[in-house]
């Protein structure tokens, strides 16, 4: 199931920020909460977080851009993450990643032109004894082979 996100709304954004602003070291918590609701962290939210936490806008921008997880724009309708770390490499992950790229016609780190699928590398899902592994919209899949990766790609394209 693809997650449903709300369109950006400043009032809703302010509400989410206010909900977490009193926590110790709240920046990451707020960024995660915004992304969970909107699917990415909209640019106008950055100065709002800064104001709520009494920090500079540059500081929040710095945090936002440091971490791989935070999105600057919405992802495709489905997000397929393929583990590209050593244990999955050892179990044939390179060939499967190439196969997924070819099927989708995009390289890892990109979204298909129809905005259906975002294909991303991930560095370890902790499923190293059932490698190679992947995650489709939060659902984990292990022991990938050609048939399984084809099925995952097809599911993501639906």
């Amino acid at each position, binding site marked *: 199931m693809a997650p449903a996100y709300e369109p950006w709304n400043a009032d809703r954004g302010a509400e989410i920020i206010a909900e977490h602003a009193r926590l*110790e*070291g*709240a*920046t*990451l*918590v707020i*960024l*995660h909460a915004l992304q969970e609701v909107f699917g990415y962290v909209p640019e106008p939210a950055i100065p709002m977080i800064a104001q709520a*936490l009494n920090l500079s806008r540059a*500081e929040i921008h*710095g*945090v936002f851009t*440091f*971490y*791989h*997880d*935070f999105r600057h724009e919405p992802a495709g309708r489905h997000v397929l993450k393929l583990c590209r*770390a*050593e*244990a*999955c*490499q*050892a*179990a*044939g992950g390179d060939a499967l990643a190439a196969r997924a790229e070819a099927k989708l016609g995009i390289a890892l780190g990109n979204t298909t032109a129809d905005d259906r699928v975002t294909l991303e590398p*991930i*560095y*370890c*899902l*902790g*499923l*190293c*004894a*059932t*490698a190679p*592994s992947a995650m489709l919209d*939060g659902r*984990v*899949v*292990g*022991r990938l082979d050609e048939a399984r990766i084809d099925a995952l790609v097809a599911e993501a394209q639906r």
Partner: protein
Amino acid sequence: MKMRIFVPRDAGAIAVGADDVVAALEQAAEKRGLPITVVRTGSRGLYWLEPMVEVETVEGRVAYGPVSPADVPSLFDAIANNGPHALRLGIADEIPWLKRQTRLTFARCGVVDPRSVEDYRAHDGYKGLERALTLTSDAILADVTTSGLRGRGGAGFPTGIKWKTVAQASADRKYIVCNADEGDSGTFADRMIMEGDPFVVIEGMTIAGITVGATKGYIYIRSEYPHAVEAMNAAIAAARRASFLGDRICGSAHNFDLEVRVGAGAYVCGEETSLLESLEGRRGIVRAKPPLPAHKGLFGKPTVINNVLSFAAIPFILAGGAKAYADFGMGRSRGTMPIQLAGNIKYGGLFEIAFGITLGELIDDVGGGTFTGRPVRAVQVGGPLGAYFPRELFDTPFDYESFAARDGLIGHGGIVVFDDSVDMAKQARFAMEFCAVESCGKCTPCRIGSTRGVETIDKIRAGERVEENIAVIEDLCNTMKFGSLCALGGFTPYPVSSALKHFREDFAPVPTRQQAAE
């Protein structure tokens, strides 16, 4: 009475279909009018047998695996007649791969319901905390020191000394931080224990809190582990309801509470000072040490920061097991290590055993060699920053010092097996590339060195002045090893140098390599 059937809710089991098996079990039971209760446990760690289903009988739990939804009808026939089945593995506890282990930290994982405090207590849970509450801080520290426990995150620093430093520091506030940013490929023990026995982590952290005088703890879990986040949050809520967290825990004078924080995909945040920065809501930039986190840690306050497995080892030790724990192991590596067998391996999973077992026993005997059936060529021990070892080094005992003596490290106990199709120059390049992507950028050897490393290995692979460029790599590795601020830049040379040392032939230009292979 309803028949109890146990199926893991461990992410590794779910990834290979455990949820579908549960749905099939419930459907088949309803169709047959057979009342069953499905208990979702953690995994026993025998991943080639997942999804593993266990059925409660008078003789004990009978295991079947790997079960697919299509196997469920025939499984029910076998259960009803107590008859044979192709997937029947016998009594779970008697499975040789499990029986060979010494499960101290993972004793309950795969056995208990990770959502239930009652089940945890019924399996000796909270005995360590109950005893700790009757002891002075010094007496608890003496137990931790006696056990010989060293930090299981990889650095191997004596836990007793770390705790004592924080206990002796005076401050208005202190913190306990659990490092659950298990980013090393080939490791999954933290994930398994958080999903399968989260209360043991909570109990260990609570004991740390009452020992050093901290009332607040954080568990920093990587975002790639959503199942672990959910399991820890559920367990924390359950522990609070049962007065094992919160004010006046278990009716004592101690207050201690926990909060889960989720990382955001930065590998470097597994480094303790970077993790603290991240917890404070900043970029995960490594801090220079000193000051040590024990003196100035989270929000500048004295902080115990330990790996998940270190905290998870504590309840056994405090439940009167300090001496027993120390009796396992070799040299200065005391106790047991939950070793993770991963990658291209036949019998992959979690194998907890006393330090001292050799690498060869782990790979060939326990692990059964490769999954592909081809010869093992290289194993990487200790994650992306660990060395690649060839078969010639398989006599190395699993112990901090023995690995260090051979220019390797045990790290967090992960072993990734590669067969003979591996290209070691490519693996060396990956190590540098990974460091370049994940470097926090604070120190030059790591930030610049890793990028130059990628470029230089590319030149070597292209056959450009190979010997000269290998000398450049060796020099670069030396600079990174001794000039970096933390283990990311400091240990990236391990996989690179070991690949060069043990698999030099892979660094020859491609045509030469092909000729050599012919």
